[in-house]
């Protein structure tokens, strides 16, 4: 991207300023993420680089905080590491349980958000759908309304969904969702649906409606047309929407604080209480693992996308 030969001095100077600004943006974006990684290998209980670490002394570095992720919360963390120790860890270690919860809630809420969001996007793409803009705005609103407000509302509603019958003078208590997996999954699905709707709607804009007509003219009913023609073509949008929904659930803490009970401890909630109660570089170890996990997730999706485009005979862009 060299400058053309006719560029003036001012243009050349501006180019350097422009590059400096770009570099600054990247530094501020990436530095906070990068700096966490070496700190998580700290041998001391500090959030700063010790003298030993800076002089690259092996004693200044350790994996103790990664180890503590496994042992923290175990009944007998110091027992010999045999099968019983591993069983104890799998059942009792707080971070391990948080990871299990996060994955379960993430996967379940992603599945729910993806199915509902895709269906909503398909319906909202049809010109004969009444009140399209209003419905779209309502479905997107969890992304725009501050999460603390959504979470407060959810907390009151989920504590007693039947409370709405109070409006007609009937006072009943039933269907409590707060403190259950179902409640957290539903809350996260609601937060994830806007991402799915937006990505699938964007894909549908480029979708050639005559393909659906062509399928019908060839004898395919609506169901076959959907699964064999529409679905494969909007899959990239569905997958990236699902990815956003998963990440939303995976790093969400506010709704979890409001709705989850003690059984639904997720990684962000564990980090939250960890930061409050016993501040230690264990948090940094978790952060490092999450960074690696996110990169792997994004890379996997990108590889799938390229493969899909290659299969479709397009050159990956």
């Amino acid at each position, binding site marked *: 991207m060299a400058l053309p030969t006719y560029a003036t001095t001012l243009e050349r100077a501006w180019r350097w300023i422009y590059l400096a600004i770009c570099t600054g943006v990247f530094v501020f974006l990436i530095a906070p993420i990068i700096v966490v990684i070496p700190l998580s290998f700290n041998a001391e209980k500090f959030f700063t680089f010790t003298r030993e670490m800076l002089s690259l002394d092996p004693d200044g570095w350790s994996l103790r905080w990664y180890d503590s992720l496994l042992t923290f919360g175990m009944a007998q963390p110091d027992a010999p590491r045999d099968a019983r120790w591993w069983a104890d860890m799998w059942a009792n270690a707080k971070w391990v349980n948080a990871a299990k919860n996060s994955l379960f809630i993430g996967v379940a809420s992603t599945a729910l958000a993806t199915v509902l969001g895709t269906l909503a996007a398909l319906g909202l793409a049809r010109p004969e759908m009444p009140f399209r803009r209003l419905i779209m705005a309502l479905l997107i609103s969890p992304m725009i309304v501050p999460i603390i407000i959504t979470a407060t509302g959810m907390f009151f509603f989920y504590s007693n969904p039947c409370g709405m019958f109070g409006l007609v003078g009937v006072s009943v208590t039933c269907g409590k969702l707060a403190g259950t997996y179902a409640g957290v999954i539903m809350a996260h699905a609601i937060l994830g649906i806007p991402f799915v709707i937006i990505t699938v709607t964007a894909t549908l804009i480029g979708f050639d409606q005559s393909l659906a*007509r062509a399928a019908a003219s060839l004898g395919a009913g609506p169901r*076959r047309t959907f699964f064999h023609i529409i679905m494969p073509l909007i899959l990239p949008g569905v997958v990236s929407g699902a990815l956003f929904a998963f990440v939303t659930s995976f790093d969400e803490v506010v709704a979890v604080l409001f709705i989850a009970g003690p059984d639904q401890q997720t990684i962000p909630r564990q980090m939250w209480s960890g930061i409050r109660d016993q501040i230690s570089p264990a948090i940094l170890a978790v952060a490092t693992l999450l960074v690696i996990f996110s990169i792997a997730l994004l890379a996997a999706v990108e590889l799938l996308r390229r493969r899909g485009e290659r299969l479709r005979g397009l050159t990956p862009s």
Partner: protein
Amino acid sequence: MIASAGSRDYVVFDHVQKSYDGRSLVVKDLNLSIGQGEFLTMLGPSGSGKTTCLMMLAGFETATHGRIMLDGRDINDVPPHKRGIGMVFQNYALFPHMTVGENLAFPLEVRGLPRADRDARVMRALDMVQMARFRDRRPAQLSGGQQQRIALARALVFDPKLVLMDEPLGALDKQLREHMQFEIKDLHRRLGVTVVYVTHDQGEALTMSDRIAVFNDGRIQQLATPSQLYEAPENSFVAGFIGENNALSGTVERLDGQTALVRLANGELIDAAPVNVGEVGQRTLVSIRPERIEFKPDLMPEGAHTVEAEVIEVIYMGDIFRARMKVAGSDDFVMKFRNTAGQVRLSPGQKIRVGWHPQDARALDPV
């Protein structure tokens, strides 16, 4: 009942109307019978209702009023995927995530054909359009003309009795388009399917069709064979829409069975064949085809009436010359003459006399 439907009324539009907004009619009282094995073209400018008619026949639009019959059966309440009508779309509408072979196998899979049968039929259909070696390619790897052939093969692979084509050659360049016209016509002859073809290209309609329905303003203006349509247009719209046309406005002076005497704008009197003029004193547009006009006195047809003309410009078009002239007050009067050896050259400003056989001048309705 089904057999007695007869091959002349294979597709029937019976008083069909269509309105999108409930107020204005896009299609106004359409009555049309299409024979089995016929190649019928719906021709008209955009917005004339021709594509809407095709979409109603395919089942993607419903008729607001009236019935559409296919092979003696009312298909108003049959969904598109159960009509068994092949369709070729303007933008090809090939499935981009499937190979050419999978695209063609799709309608056969839907119909539950066994695999071996499917493969044989796909190969036969690909051979038919000379595309067999592209079976494992994807549509994105094919050129426009190749995609068009695949779309054609896909619409025919399940042996439909009726095939609809919605401006299928619109996106191709001129040479390829002419070649594909020939191929489609040839396939139609070989397979004996009924084809309903929609286009706004009159050349395409004239070269391919058995009959042409000229649409304008939601109505069929004329339904006739290509030669009838070109040589004997029934109204000014058809005369103006099909081919090049000279229209001289005038008033009917005298009328008997075979001829009408028309007084042109500059007071000159000419003979014309009355087509849809009813009475003396009526305003009329006299339509004359540019290639039926002669200017060399020794070649003038017998009984020709000549008028004075002033050449405005002569355009060289290779095989022909096209001269624009001032005739009877109109300075948009066009004459075409062949570029033969020894042809008389005309130059702008030249005064000549042009003439035509009275039967070639058709007195039509004023627009």
